[in-house]
């Protein structure tokens, strides 16, 4: 009896041991897989920083447009790679935020300057000075990362240690010193990264992009009661339904467009309507109703007419459709302001129409409220024929019109938009109406549900 039991126990023990060992093997394998991807990212980062430091140093002394633009293009690519590798590492975001900002900006700035050189504006003295500053920061960052690499090798540190240190608080003295090495290196690096001057330039990551203010949002500041009054009159509400309005909550008091946020609940309790209304002027900023739509019994034309009707009720008179997409029986529409026959793409609103009953399910006007202003249109310097002459002679032009095109940093440029065909593909080409520069090219994609550009 005992013998049988002990045999059974021995077998069980052996099985457990076997299972444990196989788990251990799997664990070792997974750990080294993880370690390898961290190590590869880290060594790539060390290398990227070396190249970046070298490239910016060379760029400081380069004095021909050709060499400067070649180096700046490489700076852009290398900074992007460094950023990618840095973000793979298992570090807390707040120890990296400024370093990441630095890498984002230096890449974006290099790209913007490269574009400037390409249209015949060589680096100015100020831009060169700015680049020298960035170069100093780069070389500092490079040295710190190289130091960290040396210490890692010396102390045989692995990222695995780093990860387990994050999971459990450090106990032994050695563990503590490891953790502090990581933290002090990246934290001090991060602090040092705020020591470079604010970068204002025409790019998406420029410092001024964080504090954009509405160009011309007018009107009195409204109270909560007034906000409710406006919302009760929304044409999406039905007369025969008893609605429940939540108390308006103030949101984003120091953001560009402070709002009151209100939730409207009707008969369908699961699908409330979320409405945000601007404190200044009482404009609807966002409206979203997540009701599922199961049928499609409305033509696109009728749906667009419904959207226009709604826009009119909100005081938008001159909007034209610029984008349509049909999905889940909902028509997504984007409208742009047509001002003096010129399409202003920055002044855009979005509307969603349910194709079962034509109800407006969504509305968004933040871009319009931020961007809209009274514009003075001057006669374009270039005629349409002159602009046409700037195009690739191999494209077939199907139509053209004047537009205000917002660039990466939010400024508007008056352009001729040429709707063109090339190799059976559809493109929109933008030629600056003042100086003939080819500002942008968008490819148009079309399928059964709509069309979009990239």
């Amino acid at each position, binding site marked *: 009896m005992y013998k049988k039991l002990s045999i059974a126990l021995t077998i069980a023990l052996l099985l457990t041991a076997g299972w444990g060992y196989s788990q251990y093997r799997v664990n070792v394998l997974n750990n080294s897989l993880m370690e390898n991807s961290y190590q590869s990212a880290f060594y790539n980062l060390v290398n990227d920083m070396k190249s970046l430091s070298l490239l910016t140093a060379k760029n400081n002394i380069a004095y021909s447009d050709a060499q400067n633009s070649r180096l700046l293009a490489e700076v852009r690519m290398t900074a*992007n790679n460094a950023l*990618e590798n840095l973000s793979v590492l298992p570090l807390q975001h707040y120890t990296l935020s400024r370093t990441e900002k630095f890498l984002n900006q230096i890449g974006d700035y290099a790209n913007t300057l490269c574009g400037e050189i390409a249209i015949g504006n060589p680096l100015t003295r100020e831009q060169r000075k700015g680049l020298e500053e960035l170069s100093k920061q780069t070389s500092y960052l490079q040295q710190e990362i190289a130091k960290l690499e040396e210490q890692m090798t010396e102390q045989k540190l692995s990222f695995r240690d780093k990860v387990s240190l994050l999971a459990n608080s450090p106990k032994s003295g050695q563990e503590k010193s490891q953790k502090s090495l990581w933290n002090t290196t990246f934290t001090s690096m991060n602090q040092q990264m705020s020591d470079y001057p604010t970068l204002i330039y025409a790019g998406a990551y420029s410092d001024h992009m964080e504090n954009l203010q509405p160009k011309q949002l007018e009107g009195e500041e409204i109270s909560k009661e007034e906000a409710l009054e406006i919302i009760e009159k929304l044409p999406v509400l039905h007369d025969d339904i008893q609605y429940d309005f939540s108390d308006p909550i103030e949101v*984003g008091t120091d953001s560009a467009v402070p709002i009151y946020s209100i939730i409207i609940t009707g008969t369908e309790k699961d699908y409330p309507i979320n409405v945000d209304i601007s404190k200044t002027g009482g404009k609807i900023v966002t409206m*979203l109703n997540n009701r599922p739509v199961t049928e499609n019994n409305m033509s696109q034309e009728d749906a667009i007419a419904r959207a226009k009707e709604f826009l009119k009720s909100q005081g938008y008179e001159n909007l034209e459709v610029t984008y349509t997409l049909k999905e889940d029986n909902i028509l997504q529409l984007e409208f742009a302001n047509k001002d003096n026959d010129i399409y202003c793409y920055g002044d855009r609103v979005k509307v969603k129409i349910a194709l079962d009953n034509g109800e407006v399910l969504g509305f968004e006007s933040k871009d319009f409220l931020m961007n809209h202003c009274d514009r003075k249109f001057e006669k374009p310097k270039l005629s349409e024929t002159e602009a046409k002459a700037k195009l690739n002679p191999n494209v077939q032009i199907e139509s053209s019109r004047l537009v205000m095109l917002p660039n990466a940093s939010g400024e508007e440029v008056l352009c001729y938009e040429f709707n063109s065909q090339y190799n059976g593909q559809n493109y929109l080409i933008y030629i600056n109406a003042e100086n003939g520069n080819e500002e942008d090219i968008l490819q148009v994609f079309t399928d059964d549900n709509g069309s979009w550009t990239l």
Partner: protein
Amino acid sequence: MQKMLKNKKWLLAICAIILILTCLAPAFGASITPLKQGSSGQAVKDVQQKLKQWDYYSGTVDGIFGSGTKEAVKKFQRNNGLTPDGIVGKSTFEALGLNQYVNNSSNSVSGTNTTNNNDEVTLLAKAIFAEAEGEPYIGKVAVGAVLLNRVKNNQFPNTLAGVIYQGNALESVSNGRFYTFDNHEESVKAAKDALAGWDPSYGSLYFWNPAKVPANSWIWTRQVIVTIGNHSFGK
């Protein structure tokens, strides 16, 4: 075992059928005018150009399909395993690398250059599902919007994948919950809304659950912009 094998066979058969269908599909949509002796125009010119480039054709590139062109086409077809009939049809056009004459219906997008944002929708929906499954719809859109705001902000990686997979940024990515996503409908919808520009987080860069964050966390230094469901959103 026997049964499994049988199943596998079925699977293989289905795969084969799908494969064949996918191969055939483009043939239905295409409308091509074959070129033969007597044809003329830009297409003939392009064919002659290619044939000349590859030393099959020695005549002038004039856009007129004559006997010289026909002989050159036949030679090309023979060398490339095509039926040497001297007529430039779909397969010959493709072998010549002149795909534009195969997919020439004017407004359809040809196979080589289509693109959509399905990849981004899925990636974002996965993150929304893993981080905010039990949250109200608007809270899901807000989580998606925060991740997209990070892409646009200069303190974060500049791609969606970079932001989502960033080091220790999202707990659900670190602990694997992210991978349990099974096309959760509401999350996909929320991802689409966020990508279309809806931002109920009002430009927030962070979101956290105040009930779950330890008192000494760095996140408390952030300024709250809006609270939706269990999440605080802030900068």
